[in-house]
């Protein structure tokens, strides 16, 4: 079970990293999403993998999964939406104003833009 989740995290990371290393904004955003999944699952896994014992408190029942990573990951998921949305709007604005969605500055451009 652990190997399954760990390998899934590894594959998501690898695919995410590869996409982040692409030269256009859209694949990079998709890559960031994949990395977000990987990080969230990784954090979630820090509490251990437990099947069918949700962190709902019941009297006389002492088997729960770890609630803390879940709480942390829950907010992380929502925040990651905010992050994706902001990066998408930046990408879109860059493309609409520059007619180019490549993610890197071309050599020399950095100096030209300097104030």
């Amino acid at each position, binding site marked *: 079970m652990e190997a*399954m*989740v760990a*390998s*899934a*995290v*590894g594959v*998501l*990371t*690898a*695919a*995410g*990293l*590869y*996409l*982040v*290393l*692409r*030269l256009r904004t*859209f*694949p*990079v955003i998709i890559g960031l999403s*994949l990395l977000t*999944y*990987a990080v969230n*699952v*990784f954090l*979630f*896994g820090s509490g251990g*993998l*437990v*099947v*069918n014992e*949700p962190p*709902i*408190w019941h009297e006389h029942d002492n088997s*729960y*999964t770890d*609630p*803390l990573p*879940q709480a942390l*990951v*829950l*907010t992380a*998921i*929502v*925040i990651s939406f*905010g*992050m994706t*949305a902001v990066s*998408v*709007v930046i*990408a879109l*604005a860059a*493309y*609409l*104003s520059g007619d180019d*969605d490549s*993610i*890197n500055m071309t*050599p020399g451009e950095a100096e030209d833009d300097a104030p």
Partner: protein
Amino acid sequence: MSLFLIVALPFLGALLPGLMVQAGRRACSITTGLVTLLALTGLLVNAPAVLSGEVQTARLEWLPGLGMNANFFLDPLGLFFAGLILGIGLLIIIYARFYLSREDSMGEFFTYLLLFQGAMVGIVLSDNVLVLLIFWELTSLSSFLLIGYWKHTAEGRQGARMALAVTGMGGLALIGGMLILGNIVGSYDLTEILQNREAIQASPLYLPALILILLGCFTKSAQFPFHFWLPHAMAAPTPVSAYLHSATMVKAGLFLMARLWPVLSGTDAWFYLVGTAGLITMVLGALIAIFKDDLKALLAFSTVSHLGLITMLLGFGTPFAALAAVFHILNHATFKAALFMTAGIVDHEAHTRDIKRLGGLRKLMPVTFVIATVASLSMAGIPLFNGFLSKEMMLEEAVHTTWAGSHWVLPVFVTIGALFSAAYSFRYVAHTFLGPVRDDYPHKPHDPGFGMWAPAAFLCVLVLAIGLMPFLVEPLVFTVAEAVIGGVGEIEEGYHLAIWHGLTPALLMSGIAVVGGLLLLALHRPLDRAWIATPRPEAKAMFDRLMAACVGGARGLTDALHDGALTRYAAIFTVTVVAAGAHAFWTGNLVVADRGGAIPDLVPLVGWALLVVSAAWLALSHRRRLLSLVLVSIVGLVISIGFNYFSAPDLALTQISVEVVTVILLLLALNFLPKTTPVESSVGKRTRDGLIAVVGGLGVGALSYALLVHEFAFETISDFHLENSYKGGGGHNVVNVILVDFRGFDTFGEIIVLGIAALVIYAATEALLSGPVRARLLNWVPDMVRAGDAHPLMMVVATRVMMPVVLMVGFYIFLRGHNEPGGGFIAGLVVAIGVVMQYMASGFAWADRRQRFPYHGIIGAGVLAAGLTGIGAWFAGQPFLTSDFGYARIPPFNEFELATAMAFDLGVFLAVVGAVLLSLESFSRIARRSNEQVSDYAMDIDPSRNEEA
């Protein structure tokens, strides 16, 4: 007066000059003077007690965990320096009042001056080395502002930058040295450190600490080889030079060496480092000073030389030398500040400081002449002036000190130093004031007003008083010297400060120096020509080259790593992290697995396979963007199901609803972006990226596995949450209780961040739509065929029916959240999806017209509701965000629970709804501007659609 107040007064007072200058220059300077006078009075009130051996302290815990506390103490050494700083500060303020011209902003000047004064007083009164370091850096910063006060002059700016670079570098070294010292002792309190002489000198870290601390002191006090910045700092207005560069800031290094004298001195390393640096500085500074034509440069190098003298005395490490050092600090402060003031007066009146254009001022400026003569003769070491007394003591001590086994090195060199010193002192008077009156001064000079010469005259009175009646200051000098020595040694019994000690070798050396000085003055003309003809290393050019090399190196490195290519940063970052991880892996030890190991069923395996295949496919065919969107949503779906499978229903619900809104968002964006990614990188580059990605993936996978199969290394805090969830938080769903109760502050921050992200998107869209992009959007030609039925009947009907259901579900999820999976986050997302469905079905414009509440307001209401719930706890006398719950019953319903956490969760709900919808709305606005047909009807079919297209 409390020591806190004495230190704080100049800082608080620094707020006043800028305001008071509105009331005129006189009011401004009087206010500044009063602030200093008040601090000085406060200090002097403490003086009798301190001088009778009582140490005043004021302690305040600041960051006790770091050993950093705002502790101050006042001992005779601190009193002596603080008295110099505030006393001379007061004179300088009076002088500056008349020195500054109408064009100079007086408020700004006095603000900087008071900031500097506060920082200096802070240094000398600090009992905690960390606090001392803060004040130390503050003096560097405020002196930067003061040196560069005349911003319009290039010399001012360059001089200020050089001073900051050199003293700032020294400050960094000093931080290192002080931290080492504090570590050896185990405390950062100076009083504590001063008790541990043996421990410090026995430590193997003594030498590194000593070198680092001396770097700080030498740069600050302009000791060789860091002496070059001080003459360039003379671009500052003269009051600044007189204050910072003669009496106070440059003495901060001396102060620190004196302060740490009991624990650092007495070793060979101390003697040779400090003594030799002081000796070289003294002779070299004096030599250069003889040939400087700028009055202030002459005085600057003479200051360098005298600082070297004092440093050398401290380096000798004997009690008598320490006594001489303290006495010379006092004497130097009096005559040198007076001399700087006279230089400023000459510059002010004659409009030049070039000694070659001056001469004969004796008749034109008699008062200034007298002041300058008294101060110069003291500097030259002529009997009856105070400089003579401490110089004699220095010569006396040099005679008795051997350097590297040699008896003659020190006496010879100090005599040469004293000779040069006499020469430039004589020259200062002779070439400026004596000789025939000239008729080519840039401005007809005459004595300035009383206010400008009075401070210098006052100092001259002190020079003479101490010189003639040294017994007046004897108790003070002895007490301060004893504070420096700190019980490590004893001053010789029965020694007194006196003009006449009999026919000693020192007197002979003094005589040689004076005669030689006169001789040099007589021979100045030919010597000057020879000096000019001799090539010399130019410190400024060397410094500039060094700076240029540093800047070039830094720029090269930055450009190589940070060239504007995000891809490169990501690759460098990944490789670095992988390398660090590999290093940790090879050097660490891996314990065996102690948990997990269950064999997965078939269904999870299918999900796993689906995820792996989708991710791999995504990486391979990411060029087809629509397809990659589909694939990424498959991954998200599998992860949602996975969360559910691994006992995290809340996460599953959150993930799947976030998935929906994210995909809609990306679709909206993809409407405008190109639909495919072109092939740009070569196969080699792609292989390289693939390799990086695979190695990174393997590393993260391995790390993840290691984490999963090991029990916690520390005791988990989750048990606390599980135990108290119902008892303290009144909820069964521990995840939700953590979110809205235990970690409510976190969540509060979280929703604020989410709201800010949405506002950023809104603002970016607004900026985009009001800019040049607008025209581009208006002429937008869709690059894909539009659907003929933009608002299909089926969808419109279905979403209308679903809307109340969705709202109901959202409400239900919200209410059950405290006890069952659900809560504000998920409910917010569900409701947002319900609204977005209306947008999709009937178009943005149609839905927007029926939407009554602005989303900004909803976000604001959410944050406000959460915040007010938190504040509510205050009324119950509890800390922010403390929750409470109780049970209520409204007939005919059953008893139900009411928790304040619910109001907080409502805030979360509103903020999430607002943020998600504001983001999506912003994206839709771009679509709407791009000539999208706005329909007034809920559903329509576009008759213009070309079937063949």
